C-alpha cells in the first residue's frame, strides 16, 4: 500500500465527540478518568458537606435521619469507587506507558470500555436518590441484614452498580498487568521500573484477586433479597457475620488498593524535589509486596466486636500489628530520601510532605486500632472515622493532588500558578486537620459513627470539624480553577524535564507529551539505576 498521506503515521486525535467516545489512546482515556473522578470527588464532597452541615449543631436541622444515612452511604461509595480508584487508574493510564517506554496500554479497546461503563453506572447509583424509599442507606459497608431484607428497592440497583464497577476495575487491572509485563522497553527490567509502576502492578493483582469476592458478596445479597435464599439470615440457616467476613476479605485489600498507588506517587515526587535518589528502592518494592500480602490476612480486624473466638481475635491482631513494619519501612525511606537532599517546596512537594505527615498519623491510629482490647472502645466510634480519613484523604487524595500538580505541566505543556497551588495546599492542610483531628477526641469520648445527631458534650468539636470540612471542601474549588486556568492560559513550558530533579522516561518526551509517545522503544542505559 502506498502511503498518500504524510500525516498518517503521526496522526493526532480525531475531532469532536467521537475522539472521546471511541478513543483507544491511553492519554485520552487517562484524561477522561481524571476528569470523571474529579466530578465524583465533587459529588462525594457535596454529600460530605451535607453530612457536616447536619452535624454542625446538635438536633436535627436540615435533613431526616434516613436521608442522612443515604448521604453517609453514598459519600463512602462515591469517594471510594468513583473518586479515588478511577483517579489512580487515570494516572496509571497516562503514566505507565510513558514510564516504561511503551507506545500505549496493551489492551486499548478494553481500556476504552472499562472507562465508559463507569459514568452510566454512577448515574444509575445517584439516580436511586430519587427512587421511592431513597438511595441505599446501610453504609458503604452495607452490612446484612440491614442491606438485604431490611433494605428498600434501591438495593437491587446498587448491587448491579457494584457488579459493573467490579467489571471495570478488573478490566483496568488486567490491562495494567498485561502492559507492565509485556510492553516494557528493552532494558527496562522489573527492578528498574519506577515505583509508581511497581505499586500499580501490585495493586492490579490485588484488584483482580478481590473484586470477584465483592461480586460474590453482592450476588449472595441479590439471592437473599429476590430468590428466597438465606446466606445472611440466621432464621434460614445463614449467618449475618458471613457477610462481614466476605465483605472485609474484599474490603481490607481494597484500602491498600487505594493507598499503594498513592505510595507510588509520593515515591516519585519526594526524590524529585529532594534532588536525591530514593533511599531504598529495593526495600520499597519489597515493603509494598509485603503490605499487599498482609492485606489478605487481616480482614477480621474490622470485626473485633462480632464475637469471634479468642484465637481468631489474636491471629488477626498479630497480623494487623505486623503491617506497621513494612509501612514503617516506607516512611523511614521517604524521610531518609529527604535527609541531606536539596529540598524545594513546590506544590507537589508540599502535598507529598502533607501526605507523609498525615498518613503517618493515620498509620499510628491504625496501630492503636489493631490492638483488639483497646479496639473494643474505639470500634465504630469517630476515632475510626478520623483514622481512615487520615489515610484516605490525607493519604490517597493528597497524593493524587500532588500527582496532578507534578505531571500537569507535562500533560498540557503549561505551568500552573505556583502561588495559587501553595495556597490550595495550606488551606487544604489546615481545613483537613481542623475537620478530622477533633474527630479523634469525640470518638475517644464515646461518639459513635454514622449518627445524624449527638449528645451535647460532643457539640464543640463537631462544630470545629464542620468548619474544617467546609474549608477543605471550598479549597478544592481553587484547585479546579487553577487546573482549568493552566490548561486554558497557563504559561507555556517547553523543557522536556519540567522539574530539574525529576527522573524517569516520561520526562524525556517533549512537553506537552505528544499524542503518541515511544512508537519506537527508548534506549535504556543499562548502567542507569531505576528512576
Amino acid at each position: 500500500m502506498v502511503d498518500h498521506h504524510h500525516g498518517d503515521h503521526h496522526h493526532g486525535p480525531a475531532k469532536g465527540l467521537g475522539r472521546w467516545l471511541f478513543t483507544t489512546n491511553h492519554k485520552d482515556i487517562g484524561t477522561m478518568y481524571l476528569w470523571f473522578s474529579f466530578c465524583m470527588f465533587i459529588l462525594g464532597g457535596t454529600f460530605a458537606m451535607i453530612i457536616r452541615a447536619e452535624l454542625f449543631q446538635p438536633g436535627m436541622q436540615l435533613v431526616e435521619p434516613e436521608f442522612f444515612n443515604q448521604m453517609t452511604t453514598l459519600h463512602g461509595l462515591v469517594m471510594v469507587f468513583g473518586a479515588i480508584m478511577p483517579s489512580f487508574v487515570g494516572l496509571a493510564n497516562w503514566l505507565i506507558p510513558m514510564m516504561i517506554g511503551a507506545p500505549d496500554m496493551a489492551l486499548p479497546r478494553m481500556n476504552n470500555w472499562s472507562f465508559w461503563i463507569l459514568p452510566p453506572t454512577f448515574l444509575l447509583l445517584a439516580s436511586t436518590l430519587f427512587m421511592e424509599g431513597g438511595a441505599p442507606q446501610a453504609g458503604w459497608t452495607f452490612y446484612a441484614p440491614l442491606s438485604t431484607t431490611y433494605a428498600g428497592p434501591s438495593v437491587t440497583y446498587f448491587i448491579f452498580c457494584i457488579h459493573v464497577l467490579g467489571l471495570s476495575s478488573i478490566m483496568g487491572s488486567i490491562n495494567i498487568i498485561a502492559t507492565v509485563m509485556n510492553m516494557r522497553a528493552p532494558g527496562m527490567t522489573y527492578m528498574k521500573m519506577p515505583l509508581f509502576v511497581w505499586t500499580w502492578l501490585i495493586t492490579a493483582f490485588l484488584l483482580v484477586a478481590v473484586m470477584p469476592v465483592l461480586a460474590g458478596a453482592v450476588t449472595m445479597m441479590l439471592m437473599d433479597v429476590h430468590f428466597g435464599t438465606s446466606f445472611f439470615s440466621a432464621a434460614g440457616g445463614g449467618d449475618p457475620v458471613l457477610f462481614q467476613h466476605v465483605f472485609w476479605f474484599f474490603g481490607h485489600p481494597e484500602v491498600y488498593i487505594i493507598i499503594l498507588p498513592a505510595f507510588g506517587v509520593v515515591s516519585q515526587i519526594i526524590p524529585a524535589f529532594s534532588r536525591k535518589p530514593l533511599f531504598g528502592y529495593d526495600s520499597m518494592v519489597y515493603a509494598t509486596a509485603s503490605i499487599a500480602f498482609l492485606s489478605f490476612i487481616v480482614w477480621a480486624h474490622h470485626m473485633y466486636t462480632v464475637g469471634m473466638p479468642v484465637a481468631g481475635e489474636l491471629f488477626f491482631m498479630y497480623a494487623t500489628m505486623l503491617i506497621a513494619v513494612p509501612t514503617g519501612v516506607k516512611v523511614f525511606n521517604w524521610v531518609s530520601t529527604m535527609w541531606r537532599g536539596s529540598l524545594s517546596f513546590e506544590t507537589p512537594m508540599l502535598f507529598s510532605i502533607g501526605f507523609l505527615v498525615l498518613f503517618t498519623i493515620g498509620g499510628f491510629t491504625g496501630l492503636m486500632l489493631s490492638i483488639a482490647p483497646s479496639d473494643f472502645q474505639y470500634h465504630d466510634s469517630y476515632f475510626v472515622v478520623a483514622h481512615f480519613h487520615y489515610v484516605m484523604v490525607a493519604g490517597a487524595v493528597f497524593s493524587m493532588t500532588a500527582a496532578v500538580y507534578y505531571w500537569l505541566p507535562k500533560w498540557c505543556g503549561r505551568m500552573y500558578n505556583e502561588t495559587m497551588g501553595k495556597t490550595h495546599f495550606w488551606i487544604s492542610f489546615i481545613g483537613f486537620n481542623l475537620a478530622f483531628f477533633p474527630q479523634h477526641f469525640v470518638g475517644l469520648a464515646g461518639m459513635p459513627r454514622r449518627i445524624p445527631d449527638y449528645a451535647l458534650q460532643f457539640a464543640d468539636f463537631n462544630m470545629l470539624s464542620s468548619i474544617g470540612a467546609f474549608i477543605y471542601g471550598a479549597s478544592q474549588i481553587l484547585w479546579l480553577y487553577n487546573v482549568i486556568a493552566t490548561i486554558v492560559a497557563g504559561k507555556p513550558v517547553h523543557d522536556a524535564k519540567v522539574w530539574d530533579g525529576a527522573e524517569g522516561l516520561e520526562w524525556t518526551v517533549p512537553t506537552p507529551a505528544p499524542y503518541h509517545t515511544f512508537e519506537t522503544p527508548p534506549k535504556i542505559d543499562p548502567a542507569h539505576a531505576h528512576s
Partner: protein
Amino acid sequence: MGFEAKRLCKLALGPVLLLMSVLAMAAGGEVSEYNMEPGVTELGHRIYDLHMVILIICVVIGVLVFGVMFYSIYYHRKSRGAIPATFHESTKVEIAWTVVPFFILLAMAVPATTTLLDVYDNDAAELDVVVTGYQWKWKYEYLNENGENVSFFSNLRTPQTEIQNTEAKGEHYLLEVDEPLVLPVNTKVRFLVTANDVIHSWWVPQLAVKRDAIPGFINEVSSKPTEEGIFRGQCAELCGRNHGFMPIVVHVVSKEEYATWLSTKQSEAAEIKELMAQTFTLDQLMERGKAVYDANCLACHGANGEGGVGKAIAGSPVATGDLGHHLDIGINGVPGTAMQAFGGQLNDVDMAAVITYQRNAFGNNMGDIVQPIDVYNHKKANWRS
C-alpha cells in the same frame, strides 16, 4: 550526626511532655471530652492504660520521625544552598528499621494479649442479663434462677421537641431512657447480647463493653463495675433510621438497692398479670394509651398521628377501619417495613390501651374500647411469633 541527634532529642522532648500533660489532665476529669474513659471496671482501667501506653509510644516515634523530617526541611533546603548528597541503599539501615519496630510491636503484643484473654473470660458471672437490640430500642431480660425473669424495653426518653429544636435540650440529650438497666455494684455481670432484626452493637464506654448484637446469634461479654453511678452509652452499629436514637443507660447501685428494685419489678409484673384480667374505662385506656404511644409509636407516626417514617394514624384506614385488622398490625407488624411486631414488646394491657388511644385520639373518634382480654384472644388466634 551526634550534635544533630542531641538537638533532635531536645526538639522531641518538648511536645511529648506537653501532650502527656494534656492527656493527664483529660484523664483527671469526670467524663472526658477528649480521651477514652477508664470507666468503673478493672478491665476498663487496663484497656485505658494499654491505650495510653501505645498512644505515647506512637507519639514518641512520631516526634522522632517528624523531627528528622523537619530538621531536613529546615536545614537541607535548596534556598539555603544545600548540595544534595548522593547516598542511597543501605542494607544495614533497612534491616535495622525493620527489626527494631518488630521488637517494639512484640513489646506491645504482650499486654495486649493478656488483656484480651481477660476480656474473654466470662466464667464465674454472678448475674446474667440478656440484651436484645431492636430497631430502635433495647430489651433487657434478667435471668433469675430463683423467681421469675424480669424483662422490659428501654426507649429513648428525649422528646421530639428537643430533637427538632423547638425546646431547649436537656443535660442528657439523646442519652436518656425511660427505663434504665439496673445492675448491682461489685458483681460480675454476663451480658448475653443478641438482636431481633438487624445488627446492633451494645456499647457502654464506662463498663468497657462493646459487643455486636447479631440476630440469630448470642454473644457473651462480661463487666464488673466497682463503682455506683449512672453510665451512658449508645448503639454503635448502623441499624437504620434511628441508629442515633437508641441510647443505653445503666444504673449501678448497691446490692441492697438492686434487690429492692428487682422485687419491685417482679411485683410489677405480677400486677400486670392482674390488670390483664380487668376491664377498663375509655378514660383509663386513653391515659395509659397516650403514654404507651409516646414511648413506642411517636418516633415514626408523629406526636399528633400525622405520620413520618410510618403512615399517618390520624384518619388512617387502619385506625378508622376494622378493629381486628388494626390489632393484627399492632401485634404482628407489617413484614418488610419498619412497622415491627409489637405483640412481644407490649403487654396486653398496654396493647389494648394504645390501640384504643389510636382509634380515639387525633380526631379518629371511633369510640372503640379494646380490653386486655380482646388482645389476649386475638394473640391466641393470630399471633405469628
